[in-house]
């Protein structure tokens, strides 16, 4: 956690006009503790065992999310994960470093990324304008993740359990300094469906990572 992480990345974003309605709902997830976790050479099996013992979750070996009540591990590359601990506080990264000492490198990213949650009936049609991958529900399942590009901005996204409205819900992580640019592109893509900024994340049917 650092000073930046305590501020919303969207604080200076002024939502442009959009059609009425709420075909798409977006919010920023806040107060997250973030870190990257990368295996040291030859320590992969030992790291998996350590994380399984400490967090009771299998580190995903592909672009996917491994979740517990308190922490999520998003596969972003071979032997590399984005770790998300809502309300983990400043001690989380310290204790994670201690947990995996000698097996993996941990880097605090709490002020480095912004994470947005998006849902609503037109979220698929909106993201189809932005990312060059197939997010059809049949192709991209709940728990799947992908690191790709949206309007020249690198993004890591993953699919959460569907919302109470039965529609898909995604979370997208972007470098914090590019959050404003990403939000403008996202909002423009969603405008025709009606886009609403939600103060709270759209409630998912089960709480995936809070």
């Amino acid at each position, binding site marked *: 956690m650092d000073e930046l992480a305590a501020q919303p990345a969207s604080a200076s974003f002024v939502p442009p006009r959009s059609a009425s309605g709420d075909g798409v709902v977006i919010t920023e997830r806040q107060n997250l503790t973030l870190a990257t976790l990368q295996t040291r050479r030859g320590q992969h099996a030992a790291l998996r065992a350590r994380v399984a013992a400490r967090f009771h979750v299998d580190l995903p070996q592909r*672009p996917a999310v491994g979740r517990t009540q308190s922490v999520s591990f998003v596969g*972003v*590359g*071979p032997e590399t994960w984005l770790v998300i601990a809502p309300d983990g506080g400043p001690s989380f990264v310290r204790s994670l470093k201690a947990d995996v000492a000698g097996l993996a490198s941990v880097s605090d990213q709490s002020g480095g990324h912004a994470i947005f949650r998006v849902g609503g009936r037109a979220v698929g049609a909106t993201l189809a304008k932005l990312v060059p991958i197939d997010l059809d529900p049949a192709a991209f399942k709940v728990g799947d993740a*992908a690191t*790709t*590009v949206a309007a020249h901005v*690198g993004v890591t996204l993953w699919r959460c359990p569907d919302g109470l409205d039965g529609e898909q819900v995604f979370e997208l992580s972007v470098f914090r300094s590019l959050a404003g640019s990403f939000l403008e592109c996202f909002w423009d893509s969603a405008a025709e469906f009606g886009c609403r900024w939600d103060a709270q994340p759209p409630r998912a049917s089960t709480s995936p990572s809070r």
Partner: protein
Amino acid sequence: MRINCPYCGERDLGEFVYFGDPVPRPDPSAADAAQRFHDSVYLRDNPAGPHQELWYHAYGCRGWLRVTRDTRTHAMLGSAFASDPA
């Protein structure tokens, strides 16, 4: 053109950066190092057919890939991480 990344799956060309043939770096301490680097950098084969080349998955997993591509058809004949044994 789409490239199959061993980690990310099949992705659009725009996510990748082309590097060139996977030729070993010349020995910089050789007496004729300048000539060797010149040959390595500029004198490349340009085969019509299967070709091995390095691609960087810049907008994905940031891994270096060794890709075999048919230069006549852009058919992808295989890909692996460059760090894997050839």
